[in-house]
């Protein structure tokens, strides 16, 4: 199962909303304990009346989706498949607060409706009048990967389809504080983002990359198991560790959680160009969607931005990129990208 990435749209803590290229300047936002998205001027794609009920995360998701479709030159996709770990958490909080403050009386329904996890996918389908398949995955650090696997399966079943794949999560002050109380963010920074990709089977002239496969695994016992998982994953594509030219790794600054990545960089990835991304987008359940954007633009442009380099620069032409990420050492995932020209 392989697919070409024809278009990308991404709203992130970098200035990426109106161009999928790596931004020429990186500004580190100040004043907040987490990385917040740089939001676009929504009226480019969203009429103020039509978006009157939409919360921030919904607008970000729709904007990224519409940009992606424009980038790919597709008007209406055949399917919309998304992943989100917490959904529109701000709306959940709003409705909860309203319920408590008003003693369960005379509550506005809007935040309740928006809190359903498939709200973004649904709103996209309503705006585009897309009657196709529409699924939303909500499994923590597997959310985006599940959506990606579904997209690849869908393309195998419907080879002529255009699949709109997305990953998104938002951070709010409340959710940030609660997670902080639960022990998160002591050594790492929270983030958010919405990234959409248009996938199809047909090779084009300006594809970003080819996504070859995705694999998830749960609570690996040790580094050896992680290595075995990667080995088996690559072998299915007749590849070996040495074939990995570049690895995009979910290093997040927490020494203990980063151990698996360092173990790999000293071992099977010691000859690869290793790159990190959470310094730019922060940690969130669907951060691998940001990683996929980064990997895709690196593959297309054959250039690696300095801000993401961990060790050596990329030497040879980049043919195979491995994305490896885990969420709190529980949800581990692997995505393999190949050069679209090959």
């Amino acid at each position, binding site marked *: 199962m392989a697919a070409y990435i024809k278009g990308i749209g991404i709203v992130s803590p970098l200035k990426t909303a109106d161009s999928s290229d790596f931004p020429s300047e990186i500004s580190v936002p100040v004043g907040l304990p987490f990385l917040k998205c740089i939001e676009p001027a929504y009226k480019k794609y969203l009429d103020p009346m039509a978006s009157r009920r939409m919360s921030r995360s919904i607008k970000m998701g729709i904007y990224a989706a519409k940009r992606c479709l424009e980038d790919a030159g597709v008007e209406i996709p055949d399917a919309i498949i998304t992943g989100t770990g917490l959904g529109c958490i701000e709306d959940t909080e709003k409705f909860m607060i309203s319920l408590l403050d008003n003693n369960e009386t005379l509550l506005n329904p809007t935040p309740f409706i928006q809190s359903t996890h498939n709200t973004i996918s649904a709103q996209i389908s309503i705006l585009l009048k897309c*009657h196709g398949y529409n699924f939303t995955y909500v499994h923590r650090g597997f959310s985006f990967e599940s959506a990606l696997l579904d997209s690849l399966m869908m393309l195998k079943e419907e080879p002529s389809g255009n699949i709109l794949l997305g990953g998104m999560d938002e951070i709010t002050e409340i959710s940030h504080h609660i997670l902080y109380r639960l022990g998160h963010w002591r050594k790492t920074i929270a983030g958010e983002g919405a990234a959409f990709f248009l996938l199809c089977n047909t090779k084009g002239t300006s594809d970003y990359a080819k996504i070859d496969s995705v694999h998830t695994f749960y609570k690996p016992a040790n580094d050896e198991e992680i290595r075995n998982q990667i080995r088996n994953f690559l072998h299915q594509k007749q590849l070996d560790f040495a074939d990995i030219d570049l690895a995009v790794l979910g290093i997040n600054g927490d020494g203990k959680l980063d151990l698996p990545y360092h173990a790999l960089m000293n071992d099977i990835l010691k000859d690869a160009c290793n790159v990190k991304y959470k310094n730019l987008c922060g940690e969130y359940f669907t951060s691998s969607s940001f990683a996929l954007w980064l990997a895709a633009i690196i593959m297309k442009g054959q250039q690696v931005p300095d801000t993401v380099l961990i060790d050596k620069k990329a030497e040879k032409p980049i043919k195979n990129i491995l994305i490896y990420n885990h969420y709190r050492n529980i949800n581990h995932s692997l995505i393999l990208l190949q050069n679209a020209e090959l």
Partner: protein
Amino acid sequence: MANRVFVTGIGIIAAIGNHTEEALQSLTQKRSGIVKGTTLDTIFKDNIPFGEIKLSNKVLAEKLNIPSSNSYTRTALLAMTSAKEALVHAQIKDIRNARTGLISATSVGGMDRSEQFFKEYHQDKNKGRLRDIVGHDCGDHTEKIADFLGINDYMTTLSTACSSSANAIIAGSRMIKNQILDRVIIGGADSLTKFTMNGFNSLMIFDRNFCRPFDETRFGLNLGEGAAYLVLESEKMLEREPRKILCEVKGFGNASDAYHQTASSPDGFGACLAMRKALESAQLKPSDIDYINAHGTGTPNNDLSEGKAIENVFQDMLPLFSSTKAYTGHTLGATGAIEAVLCVLAIQHGLIYPNLNFTTPMKELAIRPVTELITNAKVDHVLSNSFGFGGNNTSLIFSKIYN
């Protein structure tokens, strides 16, 4: 994709019963599980009908051998209970002897405990017991099931409002057909919460009386809670390890209404699409369907929209149909799986369920639901509908296996 998908085990816990046998008895004795009142501390606590399960979290945990001072949400406890029943029912010798996945679904996850946390947190940001919030997200209950049953190969969670667990059945079936998994435990769970009670009340589709699906006087839904799981296995798996087959997942379809966030289109466009897709994938004609288990929530909008869609798709070949939500209540994320289990039982036992509380036909529809329990019925092919907010429409077809 020639790999057929079979159901080998089922488990259910809902207002109509704490396990399959009890649920079946309620169904055949026309005994609804919906009663007025709830144990939750809410302004709705008296006089409003709910399909609440009579077991407390303490008792659920005890039955599962989990220590009482735990952080398990009610959603997780319900899920683990019925997932275990399904696995035992399937008589799988060794869960690790094949590629086994777990796909679950929910609409509000661990909200039953998070809303308790939030009540205190809202007063003081240092208050609220952390063990009440740690299971908030949708994926939590799935991982609890995975750890409990020893499933490790693949897991994920879906949330598409009221079509969630019906979609989990589609996802699992496709993973088997695409030969990524040999078997998959799929289903869904949702517990009663003040959040959802108030949510549906704010939308004014919350009936203060017993719900009346497809009735002219219907006002809205009754909320319920529950969980149900099915074990799906591939043809090859069952050739390797022959066991009793309950029925086949013959076809499925998911489509978007693309009309409105909460209302369905008046002509049920998305519902028609989903039903037609399911029939096409099953390679069946409308006249092949013996029974439709409708989504039938009892809201003015759904029942009209769905009714019109059924008339459109089936025309003069209309099978017997009913909604079972007057038995169970609307169990949101769990409803697709709960009704799938009821469909499997219908096939197994030759049953057509009555649409309880129906007295006055809807003016706009020519069709009428079944009002009596039918036994010894020919139930070869059953269509089950689940339609969610955001216009997410899913239809599943289950078929009897003749050896």
